[in-house]
């Protein structure tokens, strides 16, 4: 199997925006899987936590030409720029080495017990993919959360107040898949043996997850689609989350462009 330079594996995601219906199942599945805290009042959207955030974007035209697209946004798991320049925006700034880029998987992790809550990573992330715990999470002292700890997944650490959390590409699922593979005397994981909760839950199958370094994986084929793009690609953050949209206005809204910078795309490869 031919592998690219850099990480051993490079897990990534491709989200087909043409298929996404905006149902929000990915958000719910993610929150339930990863013990994301819920407050009685979640109306303060600037402080609520959604590892998988769903944006609703439109083409800005009046009715009847209005077009809408739903834009799921997990953590982009940004990478080194590959030219020896800079690291992921958040990893390089963290004071206490509480967030790391795993060279074996390409996953950007967050070590909750080490995070001091300075929020520098949050300021550095242009995707707003990092969330701070403004309140105590599953605290038994709070009446509204009484008993909620029974719904927690034992595989994911609940977060304490005052630390940053973010999408981990359901890292515990990778651990689970690896344990199973080792038990079966395998070193490599099969395709789809490790997928994220949002990938599994998406009813429209808009999300595909796999190893971008493995040319046999569907994600590696999907990213060759002419309509594939990444969010804010110009900033050179090297995200591992790719999007597909046949609509030019959607692709255009994924980055900032000067008037002469927009490249038209025609046709679908796959």
């Amino acid at each position, binding site marked *: 199997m031919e592998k690219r330079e850099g990480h051993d594996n490079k897990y990534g995601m491709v989200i087909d925006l043409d298929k996404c219906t905006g149902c929000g199942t990915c958000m719910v599945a993610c929150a339930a899987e990863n013990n994301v805290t819920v407050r009685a009042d979640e109306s*303060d959207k*600037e*402080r609520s936590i959604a590892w998988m955030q769903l*944006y609703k*974007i439109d083409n800005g035209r009046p009715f009847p030409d209005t077009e809408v697209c739903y*834009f799921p946004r997990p953590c982009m798991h*940004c990478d080194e720029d590959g030219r020896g320049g*800079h*690291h992921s*925006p958040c990893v*390089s*700034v*963290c*004071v*206490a*080495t*509480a967030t790391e880029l795993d060279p074996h998987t390409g996953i950007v992790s967050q070590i909750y017990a*080490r*995070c*001091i*809550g*300075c*929020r*520098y990573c*949050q*300021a*550095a*992330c*242009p*995707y*707003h993919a*990092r*969330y*701070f*715990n*403004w*309140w*105590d999470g599953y605290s038994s002292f709070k009446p509204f959360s009484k008993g909620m700890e029974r719904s927690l997944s034992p595989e994911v650490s609940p977060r*304490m*107040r*005052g*630390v*940053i959390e973010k999408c981990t590409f359901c890292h515990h699922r990778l651990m689970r898949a690896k344990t199973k593979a080792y038990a079966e005397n395998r070193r490599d994981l099969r395709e789809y043996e490790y997928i994220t909760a949002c990938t599994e839950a998406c009813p429209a199958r808009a999300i595909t997850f796999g190893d971008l370094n493995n040319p046999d994986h569907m994600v590696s084929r999907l990213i060759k689609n002419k309509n594939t793009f990444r*969010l*804010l690609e*110009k*900033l*050179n*953050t090297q995200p591992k989350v790719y999007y597909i949209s046949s609509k030019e206005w959607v692709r255009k*809204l*994924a*980055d*900032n*462009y*000067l008037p002469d*910078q927009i490249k038209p795309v025609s046709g679908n490869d796959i």
Partner: protein
Amino acid sequence: MDSALIPEGTKRCSAPAFFLWTLPWLLLLACGGVSALLCLIFGLNQTNMSNIFAFALWIVADLAVIALGAGAFFTGFLTYIIGKKELKDIINVAVIIGFICYSGAMGMLGIDIGQPVRGWFIFWHANIHSMLVEVSFCITCYLCVLTIEYIPIIFENKKLNTVREFHLFGHNLHHIMAIFAATGTFLSFFHQGSLGGMFGVMYARPFAARYGFYIWPWTFFLFILSAIAAGPCFTILCTKLTEKITRKKLVPDKAIDLLAKISGFLLALYIILKIADTAGWIYGVIPQAGQRLMDFYREGPYGIWMLICEIGLFGIIPAILLLTPSLRKNRLCLIIASLMNCAGIVLNRFVFVIVTLAIPVMPFERFWSYLPTWQEWAIALAVIGYGFLLFSLSYRYLPVFPKERELNPY
């Protein structure tokens, strides 16, 4: 009542009058204390910070007071390393202001982090690539240096000086002060710089991102320069305010004039480099990110006026005022120029902290606004209260101004 503690040959107000003077500052401190407790007990939800405004009023205040406190290390550098002897008449003020600014900022930072008990992780699990680690190490070390510089001033108190050990300790510290001045200069250069570097390295935030030299973005050097340009002006302002309140002349004009002249020169240099940096940003960083300058100033109250004010109103004008001898020697003009210089640096820090976060990077993201809660204001104002209190106590009981007796014989 406390006459035994008041410096020899100087006149101070009565103890009850002094107590009344300290009341508002004690009140500010008390409000800050209550707010700090609320934040420590209930968490940072007591503030209006959010996942968008990860940094807010406290970081602006931190950056501002640290920059304004730069007068301490820079005056120390000019006095002990360059050998500008006339500045010995103002060095104590600079050191005390520096100590107030840095200790106040450290206190505020302690509340600003989500897990204050884990603060030591910065040193234990230090990520050497993070500019904030450099800031933390240098500020902590420099606060120790400032404490060492402050101790001999405290030991000069009339009563404490009678204790032989204190007298000898303070006296010997005075002799080796050049070493601490040099250490302080080294540490301060790096933390002032890395505070700027913190924002310049955020390459995914085009509003703050800057090119640079080696690992240091240009903001690294600009923050040093702006701090040493504004710091001495803040020292001048504090001195003039003390003179106004006490109705005494405390520092010879020669020292003030020299400090103002150096400040003016540095401010002019800073503004030239700031213009060059802004041009590089407009024609380099911004188009590379697919944006235009005015994209940043489209929404909310943060218009292009901020850039104009920063460079023009609070940059070029005070630089001209401070560099023109006749204007500099005019007391009112000097105070206005110093105020403008200090306002410019506060605006610069505000822009880098708040505006950077308010401007969305994703094209479909909206513009967010932020207003601090009373708890945030109370903690920020408590630093001012603390500053007034400590400075007043120092003025009352310590020989802060060496020329006070000579300038005010009675």
